[in-house]
Structures are given as C-alpha cells and as structure tokens.
C-alpha cells in the first residue's frame, strides 16, 4: 500500500537530494558516497600537520549522544569534531538520563534547547537515529544534523564509509573486485552498511560467509552471495572483511563454542592463502584474536586494520564537514 507518510521517505536526503543527516548507506546515491570519500582524502593530511585543526566547524556544538557504550567510535568522532574546531560534548546516556526514566526524545529536546548543531547518536535499537531525525523535522528543527554512529543491528554508516575509503585506497577501482564479508552478519550493523556501500559503488561480487545461524533471512535480496563454507567463499577474493563475534553469541544456541567457531570461520594464514595473493584483510575492531582472526593474520602484511582507524577519523571529518552542522 502506498502511504503518503514521512516514514516512507528516507529523511537523510532533502527534497533536492542533498545530505541532511547521515543515517544509513542504504539509499545513499553513489555520487554522495564518492563525494564523502573525495572530501575525506585531504583530511588525512590534517593529522600530519603540527596544528591538527581546520576551522570548518568553529562555533558549532557537536553532541556525542551515546546510549550504548563505546570508547573507540566515540573517541574517533570526538577527534574528528575537534579537528574541525567544533565544541564537543560527550554524553553517555545509559549512565544518566535513561537510567532516570527520561525518554529518548525528551533527552533530544533538552539537548536541542542547548543549541546543539549536530547529534552523533549511538543506540542499541535499530532505527533510533531515524526517530530523532523525524522528530527534529516534525518540530521545526531541521537545521540540527544527525549522524548515526551505530543503531542496533541496522547501520553503522561511518564505519561502512571508512571501509569503502580503505578499499579505494588500496584497490582503486571497485568495478573489478570480489569481496567477502565474514562472520556474524545477522547481528552486525557494520555488515549491513558494508553491503550497501559495496553494491552501490559497483562491486560485482559481494560474498557473505557465515554459518546459517548467523545469516539473516533474505540477505541475498541485498545483492550478496551467501557461502557457508569459508574456504569456498574466500577463493579468489580481493578483500576479506572480518566481523567481530561477540561473546554473547555463544548463548542462545547460535554457536557451540569459540573454539569450534574459529575452526570453521576463523581467518588463519592457511585460509587466507585461498584469497588473491595481494588480498587485504580488514576488521572494524575490537578484534577477538583466536576467535574470528588468528594473530598472525591480524598482525600480518596483508592486514590494513590500523590504517582503517586513521582513515576513520578523516571520513568522519568529511561527513561532519559536509553536513556543516546547521548553517541557518
């Protein structure tokens, strides 16, 4: 049924197709993804300067709104915003308002009243940043930007974009690549963002490698090939994107043990040898060595895991600079 509803339109683009918020890579046009990656490139050089700052967001207030614990992502957003000269306010909500019973939108209203220009949001529920963006639009505060820093299992667009940046850095042309995403796709917001990024940028073959318990129903419709056998799935790939396996997956009958998982789906030098000789290995961190990845691979010559982190700051700077944070 066609519904004339705000929920039927992705609120991250305005009616002119320009980026208002960054909520998901799903539905993001290729040109915008490429523009973000192009914008990020010069920002990688800012870190090499003596004064690691540019004044693009001077006078703007960026609120890091983390309803779910994260040190790494919050820190990279904080560094990115500070390098753009923004004022950064970090809020770990799970330890303050939410515990006192304040609703998500009450928190947002209060912070918006403190003249926020941008919210960087992490939340355990899929779609929470959409709710915030829809609420801001419905209450006449469209100028406040929302950046999704990870929502439930749904999306982690800046991670997806930094992964695209990394692949472009090492492989240049997306149109000739075969790429495998390995691990807990079912629970992974990173995997979903990677899949949308890769298919939008024209990667001809995106593979997903996991046991059946960790593959979402209908994932093929997102344009990927599913492999249950890791050796078969890795054959001839240019890029191996490993996912983090959380310990709690050992409960609830998804997997029997970390040891058994490693035996079938851990990335070892022997399995990596099935990929192309110049294949790169990526991981969004934090890694579980000996569970999804062998230390000799994580620290090996093909791993680009630490460059991913540095690129992440540049990509987040690009996103925040493009959104501009207000500009009424």
């Amino acid at each position, binding site marked *: *049924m066609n519904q004339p*509803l705000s929920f*039927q339109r*992705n609120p991250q683009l305005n009616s002119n197709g320009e980026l208002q918020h960054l909520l998901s890579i799903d539905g993001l046009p290729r040109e915008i993804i490429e523009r973000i990656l192009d914008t990020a490139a010069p920002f990688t050089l800012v870190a090499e300067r003596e004064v690691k700052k540019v004044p693009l967001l001077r006078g703007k207030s960026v609120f890091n709104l983390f309803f779910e614990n994260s040190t790494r992502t919050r820190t990279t957003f904080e560094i990115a915003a500070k390098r753009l000269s923004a004022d950064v306010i970090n809020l770990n909500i799970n330890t303050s308002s939410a515990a006192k019973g304040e609703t998500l939108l009450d928190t947002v209203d209060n912070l918006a009243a403190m003249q926020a220009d941008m919210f960087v949001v992490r939340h355990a*529920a899929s779609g929470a940043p959409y709710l915030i963006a829809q609420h801001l639009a419905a209450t006449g505060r469209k100028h406040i930007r929302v950046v999704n820093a990870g929502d439930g299992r749904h999306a982690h667009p800046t991670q997806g974009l930094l992964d695209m940046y990394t692949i472009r850095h090492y492989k240049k042309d997306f149109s000739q690549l075969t790429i495998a995403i390995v691990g807990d796709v079912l629970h992974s917001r990173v995997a979903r963002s990677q899949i949308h990024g890769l298919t939008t940028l024209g990667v001809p073959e995106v593979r997903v490698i996991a046991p059946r318990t960790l593959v979402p*129903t209908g994932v093929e419709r997102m344009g990927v090939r599913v492999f249950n056998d890791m050796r078969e799935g890795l054959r001839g790939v240019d890029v191996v994107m490993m996912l983090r396996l959380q310990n709690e997956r050992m409960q609830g009958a998804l997997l029997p043990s970390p040891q058994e998982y490693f035996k079938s789906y851990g990335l070892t030098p022997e399995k990596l040898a099935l990929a192309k000789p110049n294949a790169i290995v990526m991981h969004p961190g934090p890694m579980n060595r000996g569970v999804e990845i062998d230390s000799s691979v994580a620290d090996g010559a093909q791993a680009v895991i630490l460059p991913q982190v540095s690129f992440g700051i540049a990509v987040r700077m690009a996103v925040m600079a493009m959104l501009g944070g207000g500009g009424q």
Partner: protein
Amino acid sequence: MTNMLKLHIKGGRLIDPANGVDQLTDIFIADGLIVGAGDTPLNFVANSVLDATGCIVCPGLVDLCARLREPGFEYKATLQSEMAAAVAGGVTRLSCPPDTDPPLDEPGLVQMLTHRARLPGFAHVHPVGALTVQLAGERLVEMVQLFDAGCVAFGQANRSIVDTQVLLRAMHYAATFGFPIWLQAQDSFLSRNGVAHDGEVAARLGLAGIPVAAETIALATILHLAQESGARVHIRRISSAAALEMLIAARASGINATCDVSINHLHLTDADIGYFNPHARLDPPLRSQRDRDALRAGLASGAIDALCSDHTPVDEDGKQVPFEEAEVGATGLELLLPLCLKWAQEMNVPLLAALARVTSNPARILGQHAASLAVGQVADICVFDPKATAIVSRENLKSQGHNTPFLGLELPGRVRYTLIDGALAYDAGL
C-alpha cells in the same frame, strides 16, 4: 425514551447479508425492533425520518476484537472514548480481549465491565474471558462463573500457552460446557525478541525476525489439540499464507475451527514499516506480500470467516520510541468499514459478501445475535455513504488512540448514522 421512538429510514439501499438481501427498501423501527421493510406497516406513524438516499443501510458492524483498555489502561483509552469510536465506525457489537490490567480472569471484573458498558448509545460489549489465571498459561479460570458473568468465549489475547498439557486440559474443560476458545497462533520461543516478519525487510532494517514457522507450529499444536478435545476453536489474527493453508486442510478433515484477519494484515505488508514506522509495529507482525495476498483471497473465498479491527489504542509515549521498543497495536474501530470497502473494491467482492465479513459472519462466531435486518430483529443498524471518502487523521479519529499506519490515507465510505437498539447512537451531521 428509546421505546417511544418510531423511526423511518428512507430511500436507502438495504444490504442484509444474513438474509441475502440487497435492494432499495425503506425500513421501519419501533420499540428498538425492526417492524417493517418496504411498505409502511399498518398504523405506523414515524416520529423521526432518516434520509438514507444514496446510502447503504446494513446491520451494525460486529467487531471480534476491540480493546477498550478498561480496566487498567485508562491513560491509553477509556470506555467513553472507545465507545464513541465504535459508533462513529458503525460498530454496534464488539468483543474485547482479556488483556486488561488485571486481566479478565474473575467474574467480578467481567460484571463490572459489562455493567459499565451497558449504557444507551454504547455498542453491545461481549468480553472474552482469560483462559488461564493472569493469562499465565498455568491454571484454569472459573469458566462457568465467568460465562455466567457475561464472557462469550475464552482466550489468551496475544499470549500463548507454552505448556501443551495445560492447553489440552483447557480445551477439554471448555468443551465440556461448549465454550468456544479463541487463540492466536504464535509460538513463544520462535517469536521471542522478534519485532518484524523474518524476511528481507527485517534483514535490511536490522530488526529481529519472527518466522512464519512461529505461527504454523503453534497452529498445528492448537489444531491437533482441538481435534483431540473436540473444543470449538477460533483462530485470531491469522497472518501467513502457510497458516491459512493448514487451516483450510484441517477444516477439510473435519476440525471445527473458524478464523479472522485484521484490517492491518489485510492491507499492509512488512514493506509498510518503511523507515521504522512505529505504527506498523503489530502483533502478529505484518508479513510478506505473498502472505497478504493469500489473506485477501482467503477472506474473499470464505476460508477466512471474518474481518476484525484488532483495535488497540496506544498513547503517544508508547509509539514515540524506536520501532523495536514501540508498543504493539493500532487503533482500528473507525477503520473497519472503510478498509473492508477498500478491500472489496480492490478484489471485486460484491458488497453483500464483503459486508458479511464484518456483520453476519463475526456475529455467528460471537453467537449472540444474528446481525440480521429481518422484521422482528433488534435494530442495530449502520447507514453509510459508500461514495464519500475521508482522510484518516488525528483530528478525525474519535478513539483516544491516534496510532494507525493508515494515517494520511484517503479511504472509502463514511458512516452517516449508527443505531443501537433502535435509537440513534451516532449522527455524522452531514
């Protein structure tokens, strides 16, 4: 006052599914009953005439599931607000599920509810009693006493009974007295933590899925135990093509089971979740287009007996949260008729057959009143303009709950008058 009224409904097209009637006919009402159709009865002098020219005159709608939210959830809706919604939607008789707070598991609660609902201008209310104490699925309620207090059936609302021995015994006990059992088929393990149909949309949005097997497994259990016990079973809110096929096969093998579908599942699919629309958070979840199409065809063929609103008013706080945290349900009493008409138009179902799905068929399942417009019957009547349309909006809804995935849509059919026991309970003033 009611008894003094002699009413003439003039110029309308009478559609009476219970009697297979569809013709232009005036009807005459006195003392709350229909006293004549066609020619004016002898010595009948109307003291009020309702002009129904261009309108359809049909039995008041019978809704198999409308939550009135009393007792316990008065902040979401009250008897007053939801009864206003019922008559505005042409609904004159409804049953309410037992998931109140406390649940309807004691005769006193049921008596209180039916007493409070027995007011002029209110639709007839028939509670479904809890099947187990506190809906916990462990101990049986006092069914005989609850029946005497006014319950028409027993059920678990949206909860399931995990313990199959309890379920079998509940069916045996109910069958002893001929009480019907109304159940929703949903396996509590396979639906645990799930918030959307397990398919492409849930995969894309990162929502935890509920597979179709959650419905078919629970349905298989219910049907096997119904056969074993001989209980009369009604399946609420069927949601998948596979479950419907099972039910059709079970009936063919002689199992006594009826079923209904909600207005939401008749029109929407999981794709209507869009970008996390919390109004599309429903129980059971909206399923795929293939499922939706099977339900639409099943209602047309008669495999599905009735269409219900599954009316569930939720306050704003319950929906102004991320999708997976949103309270389930949608308001629907005022949308039952328009969405029945919309389905009939789209599926080319004649009005006589379409209206049977919201009048005589659910009335038969309820077993209280025939929803017939024959002479001598109670005058519970809905008069509506089939050509007029209305846009679903917060302002237009009488229900205290404004939560519906149909907000903003233009739907066919506008109720002009609703009569209960021969008295005007709603006048749109058009």
